[in-house]
């Protein structure tokens, strides 16, 4: 470190000599005289463009840090910048590959080129630690089989390298042997929800160090698809953050340390519903909770919660609820119930969707909430955000509740964009 500093200060000296004149000017606009001047103004004085190569002054760790956020292709390209950069990319601790093709055929060279490219990168890298591996692979044509066999080799390589973070986005069927990657701390698997052939996970239970887990669209419930047959146990005692979208074939264990939970699922299968509810009711350490599920699942969740009131969510700070058929007043009771069990809640986001009459989702019930919402107050709530598609979908009972909640409340209402609404209703895969 000391050497580094000396080196830098030496360079600084040389630079000073070169730019004596500029420096003097800088001194004259001394910084004290700029007190109270807004930042933008200050910067005008601060930035003398001396036309110097400053990026080469950066220590190698910082340069590697920067390169690790670039796609691997871009980071290799920097080897041509100058001598200092020539071998830098070989030590970058992360690999990031992207492939996307609408209609590839085996004759089209780009698919083969992609596979060769990844192979070559593995070959030419030096022995520096590899901590992150990301692949995004969207192939709507031929060549998937060769990808599968290569992919197997890559995962073996990264398992040997003891990666900490693995991120895969794809639309093809894959077999992933995760039990050998015991060092993983972050795992994100995003598959195309609409595709029938999806990832085949052998086991997630070996991942003792996992802190962040995102599963989206994997083994989505398809008609006539027996859930019991492909149940996968997940047990990760240190998990902090869990994102689950459209996957319900998992049984979960030991999620007690969870602090962030996002669930999005439109299934109405009772086994799946009870599993998801189990995750929520076990989450006594939750700080952030987002729920985007079907109408029937909501009532199931509330019933489950009522059954085990003993553990309120004392750590809960933020709740995001997507309520389907929100024009039904019977939501009011259950939301109040949930709020009462989150005594330290600070922010509530409610996204209201009206039921679709063409799908028979009319709310013809005319139920009166048991509690009068205007009498409800919450001790810590500071902000409520309402996202709506039509103003009248949030009925007067809702408004009463929200206005009554707390006098110092910040109420924000955001109209939902039409396009986004459609996306949300059908749980379309996230935009890539």
């Amino acid at each position: 470190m000391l050497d580094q500093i000396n080196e830098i200060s030496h360079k600084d000296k040389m630079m000073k000599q070169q730019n004596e004149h500029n420096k003097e000017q800088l001194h004259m606009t001394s910084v004290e005289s700029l007190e109270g001047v807004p930042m933008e103004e200050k910067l005008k004085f601060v930035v003398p463009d001396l036309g110097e190569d400053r990026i080469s002054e950066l220590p190698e760790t910082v340069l590697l840090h920067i390169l690790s956020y670039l796609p691997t292709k871009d980071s290799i390209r920097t080897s041509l910048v100058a001598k200092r950069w020539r071998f830098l990319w070989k030590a970058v601790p992360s690999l990031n590959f992207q492939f996307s093709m609408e209609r590839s055929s085996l004759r089209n060279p780009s698919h083969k080129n992609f596979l060769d490219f990844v192979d070559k990168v593995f070959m030419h890298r030096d022995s520096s630690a590899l901590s992150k591996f990301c692949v995004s692979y969207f192939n709507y044509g031929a060549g998937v089989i060769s990808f599968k066999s290569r992919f197997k080799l890559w995962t073996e390589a990264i398992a040997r390298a003891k990666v900490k973070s693995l991120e895969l986005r794809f639309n093809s069927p894959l077999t992933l042997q995760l039990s050998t990657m015991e060092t993983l701390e972050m795992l994100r698997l995003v598959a195309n929800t609409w595709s029938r052939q999806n990832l085949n996970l052998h086991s997630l239970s070996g991942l003792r160090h996992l802190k962040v887990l995102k599963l989206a669209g994997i083994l989505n419930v398809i008609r006539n698809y027996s859930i019991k047959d492909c149940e996968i146990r997940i047990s990760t005692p240190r998990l902090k953050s869990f994102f689950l979208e459209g996957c319900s074939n998992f049984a979960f264990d030991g999620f007690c340390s969870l602090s962030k939970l996002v669930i999005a699922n439109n299934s109405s299968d009772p086994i799946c519903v009870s599993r998801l509810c189990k995750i929520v009711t076990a989450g006594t350490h939750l700080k952030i909770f987002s729920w985007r599920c079907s109408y029937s699942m909501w009532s199931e969740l509330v019933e489950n919660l009522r059954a085990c009131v003993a553990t309120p969510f004392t750590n809960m700070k933020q709740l995001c609820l997507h309520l389907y058929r929100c024009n039904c007043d019977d939501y009011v009771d259950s939301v109040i119930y949930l709020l009462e069990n989150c005594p330290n809640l600070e922010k509530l986001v409610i996204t209201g969707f009206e039921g679709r009459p063409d799908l028979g989702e009319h709310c013809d019930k005319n139920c009166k909430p048991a509690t009068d919402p205007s009498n409800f107050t919450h001790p810590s709530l500071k902000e409520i955000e309402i996202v709506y598609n039509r103003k009248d979908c949030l009925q007067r009972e809702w408004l009463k509740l929200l206005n009554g909640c707390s006098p110092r409340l910040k109420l924000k209402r955001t109209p939902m964009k039409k396009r986004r609404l459609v996306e949300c209703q059908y749980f379309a895969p996230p935009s890539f």
Partner: protein
Amino acid sequence: MSESTEKKMVRLRSSDGEVFEVEESVAKVAKTLQDMLEEDCADAVIPITCVRAPILTKVIDYCKDQVMISSSSSTTNNPNERTEQERKAWGQKFMEGVDSSTLCELLVASNFLNIEGLLNLGVDKMVSMIQGKYPQEIRDMFNVVNDFTPEEEEEIRNQNAWAFERDPYYKKRSSSK
């Protein structure tokens, strides 16, 4: 916050000799300074030999802001607390108008002083500047002198041909020559 009576002050000297006086809590945002202060080996002026005054000003601005956020976050009603979105927007604003050479100096400073948040802001900005650029564009942006001879450059291109071939950037460039 102004009513607090005794606040220990710390003095920092930039590479070009300017002395800044800041509250201890502000200085402690920088892990390097925190370590020094806790070991009590810093009661006079702390020289920060690799950071010029204008850069140090910006670094201190950042630290002051961090103190402002964290000092009140323990109380339940904190007007300064930011959501993730607000934090992002603030970071963008903080980095707005920072040119490439200032950015590099900020990175050197935050690396030396060990201020993770500022380092990450700088790295983010740097990544957005470099991404998808030709080597020549990167050189121009940061005034890097190309110290390769044409032969050496050709050699690297050949060595890494697998990485450059069919690279739209490379193709475009070589065809424009």
